[in-house]
């Protein structure tokens, strides 16, 4: 594996098809080695800093395990107990952390463009672990890995992404990634959650989930945020589920080979029926497992 394929991984938008296919191939190799119980400490003595301004269960732990599997030292920085409470800015925080010499900074932040912003001021390589509503490239890459493991080549396949596209960085990264791999992407959800000009990215859109069930090879369900009803983009969780939930009945209408993904965390019973989340079509746990292998590939490419 050549060192430093990229300096940073900020967005899928920056990646070409061959970059993505390269990462998929390396992820597959890591997965095989892990399954065989082998490990290569290619990042021995490197310092990987998780710099998380937002909560995370999967991503942070996944990057930590991936880094440690490669022999690296990992720092886990979150805002709790830090000078962010004293008003220290993002840029000052990362400049200070960068001065301590990490090789890689993995940033999750609530502002779109945050990873790009810090990449211009730090010496470390920057991996975007989610910036506002913009992108979550490592999620899309691991999703592509799980999809390809389940479906073979993604060229010509049809993938539906269902849910709150508007607020979803996972959706944006996935749309870009899947299109680059030659798949067709359909986004689906209430019109209030489909952002303006989404089709300019190259996907199609529909409000009618039932109309696409028979043609998709996979459905990626996204978490819907059940918050403040006065600003709600749909009147109730019940209505959302009835119209756009991946229910048992809908799952039954899919092609026999079709699979189901979700980046987590799941609102069981809302965007995804519990039985479907745990059922035979679900690849959700595979996503989590594949995330380690893909993040190992990403770290090797950047560190």
């Amino acid at each position: 594996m050549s060192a430093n394929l990229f300096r940073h991984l900020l967005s899928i938008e920056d990646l070409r098809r061959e970059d993505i296919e390269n990462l998929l191939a390396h992820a597959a190799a890591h997965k095989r080695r892990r399954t065989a119980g082998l490990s290569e400490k290619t990042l021995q003595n490197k310092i990987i800093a998780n710099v998380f301004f937002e909560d995370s269960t999967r991503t942070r732990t996944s990057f930590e395990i991936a880094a440690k599997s490669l022999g690296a030292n990992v720092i886990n920085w979150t805002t709790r107990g830090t000078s962010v409470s004293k008003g220290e800015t993002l840029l000052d925080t990362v400049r200070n952390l960068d001065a301590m010499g990490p090789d890689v900074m993995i940033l999750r932040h609530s502002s779109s463009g945050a990873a790009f912003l810090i990449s211009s001021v730090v010496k470390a390589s920057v991996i975007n672990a989610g910036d506002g509503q913009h992108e979550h490239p490592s999620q899309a890459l691991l999703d592509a890995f799980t999809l390809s493991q389940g479906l073979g080549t993604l060229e010509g396949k049809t993938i539906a992404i269902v849910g709150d596209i508007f607020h979803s960085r996972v959706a944006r990264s996935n749309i870009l990634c899947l299109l680059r791999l030659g798949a067709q992407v359909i986004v689906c959800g209430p019109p209030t959650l489909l952002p303006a000009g989404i089709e300019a990215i190259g996907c199609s859109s529909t409000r009618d989930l039932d109309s696409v069930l028979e043609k998709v090879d996979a459905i990626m369900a996204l978490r819907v945020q059940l918050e403040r009803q006065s600003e709600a983009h749909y009147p109730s969780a019940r209505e959302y589920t009835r119209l756009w939930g991946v229910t048992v009945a809908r799952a039954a209408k899919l092609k026999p080979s079709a699979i189901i993904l979700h980046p987590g965390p799941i609102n069981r019973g809302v965007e995804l029926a519990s039985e479907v989340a745990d059922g035979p079509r679900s690849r959700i746990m595979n996503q989590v497992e594949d995330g380690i292998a893909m993040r190992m590939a990403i770290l090797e490419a950047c560190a």
Partner: protein
Amino acid sequence: MTDTILIRRGKLLDPRNGVKGVRDVLVRGGVVAEVSERALSVTGAESIDATGKWIFPGFVDLHVHLREPGEESKETVQTGCQAAVAGGFTSIVAMPNTRPVNDTAFITKFVVLRAEEANLCRVFPAGAISKGLLGTELAEMGELVRAGCVCVTDDGQPVMNASLMRRALLYAKTFDIPVMVHEEDLALAGQGTANEGAMGTRLGLAPVPKSSEVAMVARDIVLAEETGGRLHIAHVSCAASVQLIREAKRRGIAVSCEATPHHFTLTDAALDRYNTNAKMKPPLRDSSDVEAIRQGLADGTIDAIATDHAPHGVLDKHVEFDKAANGIVGLETALPLALEGVKAGWLTVDRMVELFTSGPAKAFRLAGGHLSVGAPADLTVVDLDDQWKVNAQRFRSKSRNTPFDGRTVHGRVARTMVGGRTVFQLNVPTET
């Protein structure tokens, strides 16, 4: 310094008086004494050779944020005026969203005093519509006008309460001043930071739908019609707004409006790479809106080019996009950007000068904007062919927040005069 100045052989363009051609302009005692087609010879006059250059009436900017009192690190009345005269502006209207807000005569008089101390361009304060810009109670408009305010606005904020807006339009009739509005329905705009469209979606930025401006333009046109008050719409950004204003004017409603150079030059494509120097309210829109703004400027629907000069420091702009302050400086780049329109053919040089001079002066009924005999000698001498590169580090403004840094442009102010006194000369260091 002599009282008599002869500006020789410049190409005078004075739209209000229908003058366009080579003239000698004689200034005496601070006013235009004579405008002559034939060359003059005046003993004892200071002679300024303007051969090959244009002479325009000094520009009038209806929308400038001078930041004083309260945010002097970004700009002061002094530095703002220095930037203005460097850009060819001899009259500017100072926005009231200072700290404290200009909602009392005290603040108005302070701004007037600071402008007198700067002794550069004329500064006409704008007073607040509502106390503290809080949008609930009318400020004492009479007191503000008596202290020197030429209009009222809550700029920076919309007037969300329609009843307050209606009362402002009615009450302002007492003083025959325009009510200037920042059109933004806050409920529709929400947390938005970028135009609702493919670019904002791609960048993951919260959208500002066009309706947030257009719906308020519609509301205020209705209120202007009903009250008979004078409405001035600030920084128009949407095609649909231009169309509504066009129709309102056709119906004889007293509405005027302005557009900024950035809204006729840039689209939301300028947001690429999260450029916070492309972040402002209203946001940069798409190409169909830019087209409509250009059409509106050319056909008279839009009365004035106004910069909405909004200085901000590095700390306010070199941050996450959603946290960055809104606005860019504009006084020193307005003329060359407008000239790009002349070069591209959607604007004539005559119409451009109207938009900088007689148009804004007329909208606010300000003195100035023309070079009639007897008028104060407020003028700017411009070299339209001068090619230069915008260099933010050399701005006279204290602030550098512009998306145009490094842009190669044509057309530059060589000299600006206010009341016959040279207040700016290119390549002559500014006295502090």
